[in-house]
């Protein structure tokens, strides 16, 4: 994967929990293509209709709080979300995202620097985020080498397979 990700921004607020990302009534689904159809349904029912693949989710504090359901990351990844930038992430969600190779970048105050519809680029190596609409440059947290390695291989499954 490229270490630069570019896409249109879709914004959310604070404490977007896993029930909003992927409502509990769909937890029995197991096919990733079926799971993808319900991304963010509990927070914004227009998301799945209007989201353009490759787009980037930008959110406030504690994104992904709540349940350990991996469906929450599966749904976003398979809906075509290319990265998530937030003030902070809930621990299990963060781990699940890395495990599936979905880049998650912590960047305090990001919501004040970008708005819905802006195009941003993220350099995963340096954590530098550029708002291409107004040329504002924002410094996000760097991913650790271990995490970057997992993401570059497309998640922990291929990573693990290689080591077996």
């Amino acid at each position: 994967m490229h270490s630069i990700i570019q896409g249109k921004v879709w914004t959310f607020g604070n404490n977007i929990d896993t029930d909003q990302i992927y409502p509990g009534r769909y937890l029995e689904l197991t096919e990733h293509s079926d799971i993808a159809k319900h991304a963010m349904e509990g927070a914004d029912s227009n998301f799945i209709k209007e989201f353009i693949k490759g787009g980037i989710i930008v959110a406030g504090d504690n994104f992904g709080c709540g349940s350990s359901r991996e469906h929450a990351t599966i749904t976003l990844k398979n809906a075509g979300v290319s990265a998530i930038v937030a003030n902070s992430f809930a621990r299990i969600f963060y781990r699940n995202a890395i495990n599936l190779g979905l880049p998650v970048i912590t960047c305090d105050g990001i919501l004040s620097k970008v708005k819905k519809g802006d195009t941003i680029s993220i350099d995963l190596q340096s954590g530098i985020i550029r708002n291409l609409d107004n040329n504002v440059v924002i410094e996000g947290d760097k991913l650790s080498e271990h995490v970057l390695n997992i993401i570059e291989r497309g998640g922990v499954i291929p990573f693990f397979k290689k080591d077996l």
Partner: protein
Amino acid sequence: MHAIEKILARASGNERVAAGEIVTAKVDMAEVNDLYLQVVKSFKEMGGQKVKHPDKVCFVLDHYAPAPTIQSATNQKAMREFVQEQGIKYLFDINEGVCHQVMPEAGIVFPGMVLVATDSHTTTHGAFGAFGTGVGATDLATILISGELWFRVPEVIKIQIDGIPQKGTSAKDIVLHIIGKLGPSIAVYKAIEYCGSTVENMSIDERMVLCNMAVEMGAKTSYIQPDDKTMRYIKSKIDREFEIFTTDKDYKYAKEYYFNVADLTPQVAKPDNIDDVDGIDNVDKVEVHQAFIGTCTGGRLEDIEVAVQILKGKTINPRTRLVVIPASKGVYLQAVQKGYIEELIKAGATISAPGCGPCLGAHQGVLAPGEYCVTTSSRNFPGRMGSTEAKIFCVSPATAAATALEGRLADPRKYILMEE
């Protein structure tokens, strides 16, 4: 070192570990629930053929117990087959109840262990001095293959609780109050240790509630130092060797908070945020359509006991439904033997099979648009228990029972005080 660090040091074969360090720890018990057929899928995708330690794995079919749809039945069937084919030692089928109640009752939880489960409320097991944490499916699959998982050693936040709570307030009120004060992300990537005289006086059931809800502050794990009460419980369940760790006197906590709960009133987390908490006196007494007593947070024997104390010989409000789901078969059986279930049915309750029930919005009492619910479960996120247009109040079992009686959000203290 903190006791939690000593647990991770033992499990990772290190003499010392420190907060921030990444360690690979051997997992003493890995639990998979029936939301996670993905665990089996990831295991196979990774090239897994044989589960490394089938005696250290359990499957608990609790979220869809019994299966409400063909899809969930099919997922459970595939899990039973995986358990059989891999020789996995523990299968708790749909007759057993919620994992966090079932596992301690079955004697597979002990102090000093590393317990990893596909459920965020695995922090519950800190009540027994275990390191319990929740992960997703793919992390759990790596444990099935390797028997290990990497962890970042967490900083520890100390929460000291003192004071004798009033009649009618319980561990649930205390932890809601704490979350209301500290917020839902205070402990992200960190651990929470509870201590103080109130915690010492609490029963094991109540301590489990405190630890269970630690994840609602973002905690990775939680901890209560095992004492005589813990040991009596553990010894009644298991006969095996384990080590109890204690925190060094010079350990420096990341943060320390102090709460005195002597004057605390029953607490309510209002829709739709678990940290939007206020005392019952300050909350509008809205009409409530459903009261739910159950789950890994509020479905234990003491919870059912307090509901019976309030409801015995009375009838719930005809406009309100009361759903009661014992957390486990063990709880259910005791509640039957003590006559509690009979009293609840007479009062108008609907009793459902042990398990998670409507907590995750899948079955056994989901909410319609526009409905209000009080629940003893742990989350009031929009859409958590059904429609995103339903409103959820998180309360104690006593408050839920009083509310079912009055048909409106109600203060349980008057009923409990009357009993004295």
